[in-house]
Protein backbone atom coordinates (compact mmCIF):
# COMPACT_ATOMS: atom_id res chain seq x y z
CA UNK A 1 0.00 0.00 0.00
CA UNK A 2 1.37 3.46 -0.85
CA UNK A 3 2.04 5.92 1.93
CA UNK A 4 -1.27 7.59 2.67
CA UNK A 5 -1.25 11.38 2.44
CA UNK A 6 -2.54 12.99 5.60
CA UNK A 7 -4.70 15.44 3.67
CA UNK A 8 -8.38 15.47 4.53
CA UNK A 9 -10.81 14.65 1.81
CA UNK A 10 -9.84 11.20 0.61
CA UNK A 11 -12.41 8.48 0.95
CA UNK A 12 -11.21 5.67 3.18
CA UNK A 13 -12.74 2.48 4.49
CA UNK A 14 -13.19 2.64 8.24
CA UNK A 15 -13.94 -0.33 10.47
CA UNK A 16 -16.58 -0.18 13.18
CA UNK A 17 -14.74 -1.06 16.39
CA UNK A 18 -17.64 -0.72 18.81
CA UNK A 19 -21.17 0.57 19.15
CA UNK A 20 -22.57 2.18 22.28
CA UNK A 21 -26.29 2.67 22.79
CA UNK A 22 -26.82 6.21 24.10
CA UNK A 23 -30.63 6.34 24.03
CA UNK A 24 -33.31 4.36 22.19
CA UNK A 25 -32.77 6.64 19.17
CA UNK A 26 -29.08 7.44 19.37
CA UNK A 27 -25.98 5.28 19.13
CA UNK A 28 -22.26 6.09 19.14
CA UNK A 29 -20.05 4.35 16.61
CA UNK A 30 -16.29 4.08 17.18
CA UNK A 31 -14.61 3.89 13.78
CA UNK A 32 -11.00 2.91 13.17
CA UNK A 33 -9.44 4.82 10.28
CA UNK A 34 -6.49 3.63 8.19
CA UNK A 35 -5.68 7.25 7.18
CA UNK A 36 -6.55 8.92 10.47
CA UNK A 37 -5.53 12.49 11.12
CA UNK A 38 -6.32 14.59 14.19
CA UNK A 39 -9.51 16.64 13.81
CA UNK A 40 -10.36 19.93 15.45
CA UNK A 41 -13.18 19.52 17.99
CA UNK A 42 -16.34 20.55 16.12
CA UNK A 43 -15.32 19.18 12.71
CA UNK A 44 -17.35 16.63 10.77
CA UNK A 45 -16.81 13.62 8.54
CA UNK A 46 -18.80 12.64 5.48
CA UNK A 47 -20.15 9.10 5.28
CA UNK A 48 -20.93 7.39 1.97
CA UNK A 49 -23.05 4.27 1.52
CA UNK A 50 -23.03 2.40 -1.78
CA UNK A 51 -25.64 -0.16 -2.89
CA UNK A 52 -24.81 -3.07 -5.23
CA UNK A 53 -26.25 -1.22 -8.26
CA UNK A 54 -24.07 1.83 -7.58
CA UNK A 55 -26.72 3.93 -5.83
CA UNK A 56 -25.01 6.19 -3.30
CA UNK A 57 -26.16 8.14 -0.25
CA UNK A 58 -23.99 10.62 1.65
CA UNK A 59 -24.44 12.49 4.92
CA UNK A 60 -22.22 14.53 7.24
CA UNK A 61 -21.79 13.67 10.93
CA UNK A 62 -19.97 15.60 13.63
CA UNK A 63 -17.17 13.89 15.52
CA UNK A 64 -17.95 13.43 19.22
CA UNK A 65 -14.52 12.27 20.34
CA UNK A 66 -11.33 14.10 21.25
CA UNK A 67 -8.52 14.05 18.67
CA UNK A 68 -6.36 12.56 21.41
CA UNK A 69 -8.10 9.26 20.59
CA UNK A 70 -5.60 8.32 17.91
CA UNK A 71 -6.56 6.42 14.77
CA UNK A 72 -10.24 6.48 15.60
CA UNK A 73 -13.27 8.75 15.66
CA UNK A 74 -16.64 8.51 17.34
CA UNK A 75 -19.72 9.42 15.34
CA UNK A 76 -22.90 9.72 17.39
CA UNK A 77 -25.90 9.23 15.14
CA UNK A 78 -29.54 10.10 15.77
CA UNK A 79 -31.88 7.71 13.92
CA UNK A 80 -34.32 9.70 11.80
CA UNK A 81 -37.44 7.80 10.82
CA UNK A 82 -37.57 9.03 7.23
CA UNK A 83 -33.81 9.03 6.84
CA UNK A 84 -31.64 6.81 4.72
CA UNK A 85 -28.17 6.75 6.24
CA UNK A 86 -29.01 6.97 9.95
CA UNK A 87 -31.51 4.03 9.84
CA UNK A 88 -28.85 1.99 8.03
CA UNK A 89 -26.44 2.62 10.90
CA UNK A 90 -29.06 1.77 13.49
CA UNK A 91 -30.56 -1.29 11.82
CA UNK A 92 -27.68 -2.84 9.90
CA UNK A 93 -24.24 -1.78 11.11
CA UNK A 94 -22.49 -4.10 13.56
CA UNK A 95 -19.00 -4.12 15.05
CA UNK A 96 -16.55 -5.30 12.38
CA UNK A 97 -18.53 -3.75 9.52
CA UNK A 98 -16.82 -1.37 7.15
CA UNK A 99 -18.00 2.12 6.26
CA UNK A 100 -16.62 4.65 3.78
CA UNK A 101 -15.79 8.01 5.33
CA UNK A 102 -13.77 11.11 4.54
CA UNK A 103 -12.78 14.07 6.66
CA UNK A 104 -12.24 15.94 8.88
CA UNK A 105 -13.92 18.98 7.34
CA UNK A 106 -14.80 22.63 8.02
CA UNK A 107 -12.74 24.82 10.30
CA UNK A 108 -15.08 27.50 11.61
CA UNK A 109 -17.35 25.76 14.13
CA UNK A 110 -14.28 24.46 15.94
CA UNK A 111 -12.67 24.95 19.32
CA UNK A 112 -8.90 25.48 18.98
CA UNK A 113 -8.22 26.42 22.59
CA UNK A 114 -7.13 29.93 21.57
CA UNK A 115 -10.57 31.60 21.65
CA UNK A 116 -11.28 34.04 24.48
CA UNK A 117 -12.47 32.21 27.62
CA UNK A 118 -14.74 31.49 29.39
CA UNK A 119 -16.42 29.44 26.70
CA UNK A 120 -20.07 28.49 26.77
CA UNK A 121 -21.43 25.59 24.74
CA UNK A 122 -25.17 25.48 24.12
CA UNK A 123 -26.64 22.29 22.68
CA UNK A 124 -30.17 21.22 21.90
CA UNK A 125 -30.92 17.49 21.53
CA UNK A 126 -28.33 15.77 19.35
CA UNK A 127 -26.75 19.20 18.82
CA UNK A 128 -24.60 18.26 21.79
CA UNK A 129 -22.44 15.97 19.61
CA UNK A 130 -19.82 18.44 18.27
CA UNK A 131 -19.89 20.27 21.62
CA UNK A 132 -19.02 16.99 23.35
CA UNK A 133 -15.83 16.79 21.27
CA UNK A 134 -14.92 20.26 22.60
CA UNK A 135 -15.79 19.41 26.20
CA UNK A 136 -13.95 16.09 26.13
CA UNK A 137 -10.87 17.62 24.51
CA UNK A 138 -10.77 20.54 26.91
CA UNK A 139 -10.97 18.21 29.91
CA UNK A 140 -7.96 16.28 28.62
CA UNK A 141 -5.83 19.18 27.40
CA UNK A 142 -6.80 22.45 29.08
CA UNK A 143 -8.86 21.56 32.15
CA UNK A 144 -8.17 24.98 33.67
CA UNK A 145 -9.92 26.73 30.75
CA UNK A 146 -13.43 27.64 31.91
CA UNK A 147 -15.93 25.92 29.62
CA UNK A 148 -19.52 25.26 30.44
CA UNK A 149 -22.19 23.26 28.62
CA UNK A 150 -25.87 24.16 28.58
CA UNK A 151 -27.81 21.15 27.34
CA UNK A 152 -31.48 21.32 26.48
CA UNK A 153 -33.11 17.94 26.22
CA UNK A 154 -36.68 16.66 26.20
CA UNK A 155 -36.66 13.93 28.83
CA UNK A 156 -34.17 12.01 30.99
CA UNK A 157 -34.30 9.19 28.44
CA UNK A 158 -32.96 11.54 25.74
CA UNK A 159 -29.78 12.58 27.55
CA UNK A 160 -26.66 11.69 25.55
CA UNK A 161 -23.28 11.09 27.23
CA UNK A 162 -25.16 11.01 30.56
CA UNK A 163 -22.29 9.53 32.55
CA UNK A 164 -19.89 12.23 31.32
CA UNK A 165 -21.92 15.29 32.27
CA UNK A 166 -20.41 16.72 35.42
CA UNK A 167 -20.25 20.06 37.19
CA UNK A 168 -19.43 21.77 33.90
CA UNK A 169 -22.86 20.88 32.46
CA UNK A 170 -26.21 22.53 33.16
CA UNK A 171 -29.22 20.59 31.92
CA UNK A 172 -32.73 21.73 31.25
CA UNK A 173 -35.58 19.33 30.52
CA UNK A 174 -38.14 20.71 28.09
CA UNK A 175 -40.78 17.97 28.31
CA UNK A 176 -40.45 15.85 31.38
CA UNK A 177 -37.76 16.17 34.03
CA UNK A 178 -36.62 13.09 35.93
CA UNK A 179 -38.42 12.36 39.19
CA UNK A 180 -37.01 14.48 41.98
CA UNK A 181 -35.24 16.89 39.58
CA UNK A 182 -34.59 20.25 41.20
CA UNK A 183 -32.67 21.85 38.32
CA UNK A 184 -33.88 23.78 35.28
CA UNK A 185 -36.95 22.87 33.30
CA UNK A 186 -38.45 24.31 30.13
CA UNK A 187 -36.86 25.98 27.16
CA UNK A 188 -33.77 28.17 27.28
CA UNK A 189 -34.44 31.54 28.86
CA UNK A 190 -32.53 34.60 29.98
CA UNK A 191 -32.17 33.27 33.52
CA UNK A 192 -30.52 30.04 32.47
CA UNK A 193 -28.28 31.66 29.86
CA UNK A 194 -27.42 34.46 32.29
CA UNK A 195 -26.25 31.88 34.84
CA UNK A 196 -24.34 29.74 32.37
CA UNK A 197 -22.83 32.51 30.28
CA UNK A 198 -21.80 34.88 33.06
CA UNK A 199 -18.48 36.33 31.91
CA UNK A 200 -18.39 34.14 28.80
CA UNK A 201 -16.48 35.52 25.82
CA UNK A 202 -17.02 32.79 23.23
CA UNK A 203 -20.11 30.70 22.49
CA UNK A 204 -20.80 27.65 20.37
CA UNK A 205 -24.43 26.76 19.70
CA UNK A 206 -25.67 23.65 17.94
CA UNK A 207 -29.22 22.45 17.49
CA UNK A 208 -32.27 22.93 15.33
CA UNK A 209 -32.66 26.29 13.62
CA UNK A 210 -35.28 27.51 16.10
CA UNK A 211 -33.11 26.48 19.03
CA UNK A 212 -30.05 28.24 17.59
CA UNK A 213 -32.03 31.42 16.87
CA UNK A 214 -33.28 31.55 20.47
CA UNK A 215 -29.92 30.72 22.00
CA UNK A 216 -27.97 33.19 19.86
CA UNK A 217 -30.36 36.01 20.74
CA UNK A 218 -30.07 35.20 24.45
CA UNK A 219 -26.27 35.14 24.20
CA UNK A 220 -26.20 38.45 22.34
CA UNK A 221 -28.43 39.87 25.10
CA UNK A 222 -25.98 38.46 27.67
CA UNK A 223 -23.25 40.56 26.07
CA UNK A 224 -21.29 38.10 23.92
CA UNK A 225 -20.04 39.75 20.73
CA UNK A 226 -21.68 38.43 17.55
CA UNK A 227 -18.31 37.54 16.01
CA UNK A 228 -17.66 35.19 18.95
CA UNK A 229 -20.96 33.35 18.63
CA UNK A 230 -20.51 30.37 16.32
CA UNK A 231 -23.51 28.39 15.29
CA UNK A 232 -24.25 25.12 13.61
CA UNK A 233 -27.85 24.44 12.65
CA UNK A 234 -28.90 21.05 11.60
CA UNK A 235 -31.60 20.98 9.10
CA UNK A 236 -33.26 17.67 8.67
CA UNK A 237 -30.53 15.22 7.84
CA UNK A 238 -30.79 11.52 7.81
Amino acid at each position, binding site marked *: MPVAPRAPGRWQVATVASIEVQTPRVKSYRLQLPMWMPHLPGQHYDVRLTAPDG*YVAQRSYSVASSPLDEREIELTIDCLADGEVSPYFHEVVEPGDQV*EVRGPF*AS*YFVWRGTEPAPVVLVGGGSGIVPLMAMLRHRRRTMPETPMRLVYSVRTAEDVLFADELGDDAILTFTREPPVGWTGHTGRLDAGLIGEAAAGAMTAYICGS*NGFVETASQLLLDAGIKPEW*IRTERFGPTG
Partner: protein
Amino acid sequence: MSGFLSRGFSGRRRLPPELAARVPPGQYVEQGFPVLTAGPTPKIEPDEWGLRIDGMVGEPREWTAADFRELPSETVPCDIHCVTKWSKLGTSFEGVSLDVLLADVEPLGAYAMAYSYGGYTTNLAIEDLTGGKAWVVSEHEGESLPREHGGPARLLVPHLYFWKSAKWVAGLRVMDHDEPGFWEANGYHNRGDPWKEERYWND
Protein backbone atom coordinates in the same frame (compact mmCIF):
# COMPACT_ATOMS: atom_id res chain seq x y z
CA MET B 1 -15.79 4.95 -7.59
CA SER B 2 -13.85 2.78 -5.21
CA GLY B 3 -15.80 -0.42 -5.82
CA PHE B 4 -16.67 -0.49 -2.13
CA LEU B 5 -20.14 -1.80 -1.28
CA SER B 6 -21.94 -1.15 1.99
CA ARG B 7 -23.13 -4.46 3.39
CA GLY B 8 -26.90 -4.63 3.48
CA PHE B 9 -27.50 -1.18 1.98
CA SER B 10 -30.14 -0.87 -0.70
CA GLY B 11 -31.21 2.79 -0.43
CA ARG B 12 -34.65 3.79 0.71
CA ARG B 13 -34.92 7.35 -0.59
CA ARG B 14 -34.45 6.66 -4.28
CA LEU B 15 -36.02 9.10 -6.67
CA PRO B 16 -37.85 8.53 -9.94
CA PRO B 17 -35.37 8.91 -12.82
CA GLU B 18 -36.66 12.30 -13.99
CA LEU B 19 -35.98 13.76 -10.53
CA ALA B 20 -32.78 11.79 -9.95
CA ALA B 21 -31.33 13.43 -13.07
CA ARG B 22 -31.71 16.83 -11.40
CA VAL B 23 -29.85 15.85 -8.22
CA PRO B 24 -26.04 16.22 -8.26
CA PRO B 25 -23.84 13.41 -6.90
CA GLY B 26 -23.98 12.89 -3.15
CA GLN B 27 -27.09 15.06 -2.70
CA TYR B 28 -30.57 14.09 -1.46
CA VAL B 29 -33.86 15.88 -1.94
CA GLU B 30 -35.24 17.92 0.91
CA GLN B 31 -38.80 19.25 0.84
CA GLY B 32 -38.22 22.02 3.38
CA PHE B 33 -35.76 24.88 3.22
CA PRO B 34 -33.15 24.27 5.95
CA VAL B 35 -31.29 27.23 7.42
CA LEU B 36 -27.49 27.22 7.68
CA THR B 37 -25.64 30.20 9.05
CA ALA B 38 -22.29 30.40 10.80
CA GLY B 39 -23.39 32.95 13.41
CA PRO B 40 -26.34 34.97 14.68
CA THR B 41 -28.86 36.15 12.07
CA PRO B 42 -28.33 39.86 11.28
CA LYS B 43 -31.33 42.17 11.55
CA ILE B 44 -31.53 44.58 8.63
CA GLU B 45 -34.60 46.73 8.16
CA PRO B 46 -35.78 46.48 4.54
CA ASP B 47 -35.53 50.24 4.03
CA GLU B 48 -32.02 50.38 5.49
CA TRP B 49 -30.73 47.73 3.12
CA GLY B 50 -28.64 48.89 0.18
CA LEU B 51 -26.33 47.36 -2.41
CA ARG B 52 -22.91 48.50 -3.69
CA ILE B 53 -20.68 47.37 -6.50
CA ASP B 54 -17.19 48.71 -6.00
CA GLY B 55 -13.51 47.77 -6.24
CA MET B 56 -11.96 47.60 -9.70
CA VAL B 57 -14.80 49.08 -11.69
CA GLY B 58 -15.11 51.96 -14.10
CA GLU B 59 -17.99 53.42 -12.13
CA PRO B 60 -18.83 52.29 -8.55
CA ARG B 61 -22.59 52.10 -8.03
CA GLU B 62 -24.82 52.16 -5.00
CA TRP B 63 -28.51 51.38 -4.86
CA THR B 64 -30.81 52.19 -1.97
CA ALA B 65 -33.71 49.84 -1.28
CA ALA B 66 -35.92 52.27 -3.20
CA ASP B 67 -33.52 52.40 -6.16
CA PHE B 68 -33.38 48.61 -6.20
CA ARG B 69 -37.16 48.30 -6.39
CA GLU B 70 -37.10 50.37 -9.59
CA LEU B 71 -34.80 47.92 -11.39
CA PRO B 72 -36.25 45.34 -13.78
CA SER B 73 -36.78 42.12 -11.84
CA GLU B 74 -37.49 38.61 -12.97
CA THR B 75 -38.74 35.34 -11.52
CA VAL B 76 -36.00 32.74 -11.33
CA PRO B 77 -37.19 29.13 -11.19
CA CYS B 78 -34.33 26.95 -9.99
CA ASP B 79 -33.03 23.93 -8.10
CA ILE B 80 -30.66 24.70 -5.23
CA HIS B 81 -27.93 22.51 -3.78
CA CYS B 82 -26.39 22.91 -0.32
CA VAL B 83 -22.93 21.47 0.34
CA THR B 84 -24.35 19.88 3.52
CA LYS B 85 -26.00 17.43 1.09
CA TRP B 86 -29.61 18.60 0.67
CA SER B 87 -31.05 19.82 -2.59
CA LYS B 88 -34.34 21.63 -3.02
CA LEU B 89 -35.93 21.14 -6.42
CA GLY B 90 -38.39 23.35 -8.22
CA THR B 91 -38.20 26.45 -6.05
CA SER B 92 -38.20 30.06 -7.23
CA PHE B 93 -36.89 33.48 -6.31
CA GLU B 94 -37.57 36.97 -7.63
CA GLY B 95 -34.88 39.58 -8.13
CA VAL B 96 -32.55 41.53 -10.35
CA SER B 97 -30.04 39.90 -12.67
CA LEU B 98 -26.36 40.65 -12.05
CA ASP B 99 -26.21 41.39 -15.79
CA VAL B 100 -28.45 44.39 -15.07
CA LEU B 101 -26.49 45.44 -11.99
CA LEU B 102 -23.10 45.11 -13.66
CA ALA B 103 -24.17 46.80 -16.90
CA ASP B 104 -23.31 50.31 -15.76
CA VAL B 105 -20.31 49.63 -13.55
CA GLU B 106 -17.82 48.27 -16.09
CA PRO B 107 -15.97 45.55 -14.14
CA LEU B 108 -12.22 45.78 -14.75
CA GLY B 109 -11.29 42.55 -12.97
CA ALA B 110 -12.30 38.93 -13.54
CA TYR B 111 -13.15 38.17 -9.88
CA ALA B 112 -15.48 39.44 -7.22
CA MET B 113 -15.90 39.14 -3.48
CA ALA B 114 -19.50 39.24 -2.36
CA TYR B 115 -19.82 40.78 1.10
CA SER B 116 -22.73 40.76 3.49
CA TYR B 117 -24.18 42.53 6.47
CA GLY B 118 -22.75 40.63 9.44
CA GLY B 119 -19.34 40.14 7.79
CA TYR B 120 -19.84 37.06 5.59
CA THR B 121 -17.90 36.92 2.32
CA THR B 122 -17.73 34.55 -0.64
CA ASN B 123 -15.65 34.75 -3.80
CA LEU B 124 -16.97 34.28 -7.33
CA ALA B 125 -15.55 34.67 -10.82
CA ILE B 126 -17.29 37.40 -12.83
CA GLU B 127 -17.94 34.62 -15.36
CA ASP B 128 -20.12 32.87 -12.73
CA LEU B 129 -22.05 36.09 -12.06
CA THR B 130 -22.90 37.04 -15.65
CA GLY B 131 -24.73 35.52 -18.58
CA GLY B 132 -28.06 34.99 -16.80
CA LYS B 133 -26.55 32.88 -13.99
CA ALA B 134 -26.77 35.13 -10.92
CA TRP B 135 -29.26 37.50 -9.27
CA VAL B 136 -29.81 39.62 -6.18
CA VAL B 137 -33.18 38.37 -4.93
CA SER B 138 -35.62 39.76 -2.38
CA GLU B 139 -38.49 37.27 -2.73
CA HIS B 140 -38.79 33.51 -2.35
CA GLU B 141 -41.80 31.72 -3.81
CA GLY B 142 -43.84 34.90 -3.91
CA GLU B 143 -43.11 36.12 -0.38
CA SER B 144 -40.56 38.58 0.97
CA LEU B 145 -37.34 36.69 1.59
CA PRO B 146 -37.37 35.67 5.28
CA ARG B 147 -34.60 37.12 7.44
CA GLU B 148 -33.19 33.67 8.27
CA HIS B 149 -32.86 32.98 4.53
CA GLY B 150 -31.01 36.24 3.90
CA GLY B 151 -33.73 38.88 3.79
CA PRO B 152 -34.03 41.67 2.82
CA ALA B 153 -31.88 40.40 -0.07
CA ARG B 154 -29.41 37.69 -0.93
CA LEU B 155 -27.28 36.69 -3.84
CA LEU B 156 -28.64 33.76 -5.88
CA VAL B 157 -26.15 31.69 -7.86
CA PRO B 158 -27.99 28.40 -8.23
CA HIS B 159 -25.44 26.66 -10.46
CA LEU B 160 -22.97 26.63 -7.54
CA TYR B 161 -23.35 25.21 -4.00
CA PHE B 162 -25.61 27.47 -2.02
CA TRP B 163 -22.96 28.97 0.29
CA LYS B 164 -22.01 31.08 -2.75
CA SER B 165 -25.51 32.63 -2.66
CA ALA B 166 -24.54 35.06 0.11
CA LYS B 167 -27.37 35.96 2.50
CA TRP B 168 -27.88 39.61 3.57
CA VAL B 169 -25.76 40.68 0.61
CA ALA B 170 -24.42 44.23 0.90
CA GLY B 171 -22.22 44.38 -2.16
CA LEU B 172 -19.68 43.03 -4.58
CA ARG B 173 -16.07 44.11 -4.68
CA VAL B 174 -14.56 43.53 -8.11
CA MET B 175 -10.93 42.39 -8.01
CA ASP B 176 -8.17 41.63 -10.51
CA HIS B 177 -7.27 38.47 -8.59
CA ASP B 178 -9.12 35.68 -6.82
CA GLU B 179 -9.05 35.28 -3.05
CA PRO B 180 -10.95 32.97 -0.72
CA GLY B 181 -14.08 34.15 1.06
CA PHE B 182 -15.33 32.91 4.43
CA TRP B 183 -16.07 29.24 3.78
CA GLU B 184 -13.44 29.04 1.05
CA ALA B 185 -10.87 29.92 3.75
CA ASN B 186 -12.41 27.40 6.14
CA GLY B 187 -12.06 24.20 4.15
CA TYR B 188 -14.62 24.52 1.38
CA HIS B 189 -13.91 24.46 -2.35
CA ASN B 190 -12.96 27.65 -4.13
CA ARG B 191 -15.60 27.34 -6.86
CA GLY B 192 -18.18 24.80 -5.61
CA ASP B 193 -19.74 23.24 -8.71
CA PRO B 194 -22.22 20.66 -7.35
CA TRP B 195 -22.16 18.61 -10.57
CA LYS B 196 -18.39 18.12 -10.15
CA GLU B 197 -18.95 17.58 -6.40
CA GLU B 198 -16.51 20.38 -5.55
CA ARG B 199 -17.26 20.40 -1.81
CA TYR B 200 -13.91 20.72 -0.05
CA TRP B 201 -10.38 21.99 -0.70
CA ASN B 202 -8.98 18.85 -2.28
CA ASP B 203 -12.00 17.97 -4.43
